[in-house]
């Protein structure tokens, strides 16, 4: 029954896309926290995901923390009110920003001839996600070594009209790196039928 199959594939909805994007953030954040050694490596265990092995934390406190954040992020993505998610890695003692992993969330305008367009196959999306995660891993080779103790912070850039749960999310500083001391590398992107995620990393680099 080819027609139904096609219909199924087309039916990647806003909700489905949101779930996909949120899930990607979860694994991306875990991968960064592991690769940049923000948390000790033995807190992580291997999980099979996107057809490859991904390291995910098993520290319960951290798991819950990320879950709470991603739950809200998912709501924002669903309403289209988040434009950017930033994972900031700071030095624990001096609170200087060392790295900013930036993920731009963009809404993709539906194509004009939407009746004809066929949804992007899930396998293709997964392979794009795989490529980003692999790129994060490979970034370690050239990112400066961070010897000090690190902490991280997740920032969400939202629109003014976004629903913000009172008391849980607060306006903060962008925790930027001074332009003269930072370098940026653009990474791969992936897109579903609804969203497009572009990744970028900026890191402190002093001669």
């Amino acid at each position: 029954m080819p027609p139904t199959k096609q219909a199924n594939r087309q039916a990647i909805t806003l909700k489905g896309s949101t779930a996909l994007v949120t899930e990607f953030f979860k694994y991306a954040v875990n991968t960064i926290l592991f690769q940049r050694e923000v948390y000790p490596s033995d807190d992580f265990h291997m999980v099979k995901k996107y057809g490859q092995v991904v390291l995910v934390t098993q520290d319960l406190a951290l798991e819950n923390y990320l879950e709470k954040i991603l739950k809200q992020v998912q709501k924002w993505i669903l309403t289209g009110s988040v434009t950017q998610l930033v994972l900031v890695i700071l030095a624990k003692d001096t609170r200087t920003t060392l790295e900013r992993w930036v993920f731009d969330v963009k809404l993709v305008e539906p194509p004009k001839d939407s009746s004809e367009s066929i949804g992007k196959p899930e396998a293709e999306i997964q392979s794009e996600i795989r490529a980003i995660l692999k790129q994060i891993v490979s970034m370690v080779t050239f990112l400066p070594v961070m010897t000090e103790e690190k902490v991280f912070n997740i920032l969400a850039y939202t629109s003014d009209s976004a629903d913000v749960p009172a008391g849980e999310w607060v306006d903060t500083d962008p925790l930027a790196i001074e332009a003269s001391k930072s370098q940026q590398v653009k990474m791969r992107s992936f897109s579903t039928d609804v969203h497009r995620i572009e990744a970028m990393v900026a890191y402190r680099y002093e001669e």
Partner: protein
Amino acid sequence: MSTVKTPSRRRVRSEAKTPLTPSLLSAFNTVSIESPIKRATSTSIPLSDAFQRQASGGVIRKGGVESRIDVVTLDYVPPPKSAEVKRSRSTPAINRSERDRFISSRDHTLEVSATLDQMSLNAPSGSPTHTARLAAAAGVPLNRRILGYHLQPPSASSDTTLALQREFARPLYANRPGAIATSTGSTTNKTRKISTQPERVLDAPGMVDDFYLNLLSWSSLNCVAVALESSTYIWKADTGAVVQMGEAPAGTYVSSVNFSNDGAFLGIGLGTGDVELWDVERGTKLRTMGGHQAQVAVLSWWQHLLSSGCGDGSVWHHDVRVPRHKVMELLGHSGEVCGLEWRKDGELIASGGNDNVVNIWDGRVGDTGPPVAGDGVATGNAKWTKRNHTAAVKALAWSPWQPNLLASGGGTNDAAINVWNSTTGARLHTHTTPSQITSLHFSPHRKELLSTHGYPTNAIGVWSYPGLERVAEIRDAHDSRVLFSAVSPGGDMVVTGAGDESLKFWRIWDVPAGDSKKGKMSSGRGDGVTRSGVLSIR
């Protein structure tokens, strides 16, 4: 509204003149430039929007009042050049509540706060208010908020020292490698039938669960000696009778037992360092040989020589016939000696210690090593010293059918069986097992090797020689690690002892019927007095 406009214009001007302020740069850095259409829409309205939001958020509370003050100050001071300079140096993140009508003092505060602001290291963390104003001034859209979760992320649960400790403890928590997929947890070769159930189980209450001790021995007269804390018992396999061989002196314990080759005498090593000699038949103590300063963890006989391995790393030969019993001292271990085995012909003696070393010594008594000042006792040099093991070596076995073969097995971190040629010193075979090796025996009449293991498999393994392929393995032979084992004089039974306070008898090798005579001749420890036919466990 004109009153509001003036200060805001002034602010814009002053900010535009300080392009090197880190906060401004950071604002440029973070605020990505979006489509020009958006920028156009956000020129005027979002600015007031942003302020409104800040006002509601409580960041700026006194916009109106403040602006009036600003007007006043400007009226008082028609911008002279010096004031302009000062203002340009200042960043607008001034503590505005400190402003005063008094110009002089205000200028002073301004200056101070400005320097403070520049001195502060954490430049990019200007207040959100500042960033907002800055963005508005630069014409960059700010129709969005930067939000952070109100809680800090949890700190890392463990530090590096803990990780290191986990690394050390990993072998203990290892999964049982290569788990055997049979219901009994045992495997046997198709061509061999080995019972995976013990033939007999004896209770051994109080058996000490200590890897370094050697508390089990089976004599050529078919008696099993086992030490339970301070008492030693003899279980006669022929009759099933149990005899107590006496107690260790108060305050100490038995750390090793071993039968002489003819089975008539029993050596008992104590925690104090004394070595006792007992007559098995009469059940009396013949003599006590003192001298060691630490626990005697292992004993081995060759005819009249009783060799003892001590906690201080020394091995002594005691001649049990003469008053001055200590006839030779072998110094070659820096850790406790826990494995000691004479070769059947008395040519060589092998020792293993907690320093991970295996030494092979010449068995002849005579002075070959450097003289030790004082007691004039002969010393010896190791013929071979092997440092391949990475854990304590307790398990040692000489091959009965090929005299120059020595097998040694390492402890938890090593878990490898090495087979050595004592003539050439070569390492002939190495086989890594899943867990700690506590004892090794060559089969008297088969080309096979038996090993007992500790955590996590608690197994008895039978390996072919020279291939070292697994012939059989009995997992969980005991409830805790199998620590001690001894082969029967007939060469068909093996007794194992463990920390679960039981002795188990296993029929590992069948003596071929036609071969019984030959078996009698070549049995392991017996030197020809074995009565293999008599062995029966009732």
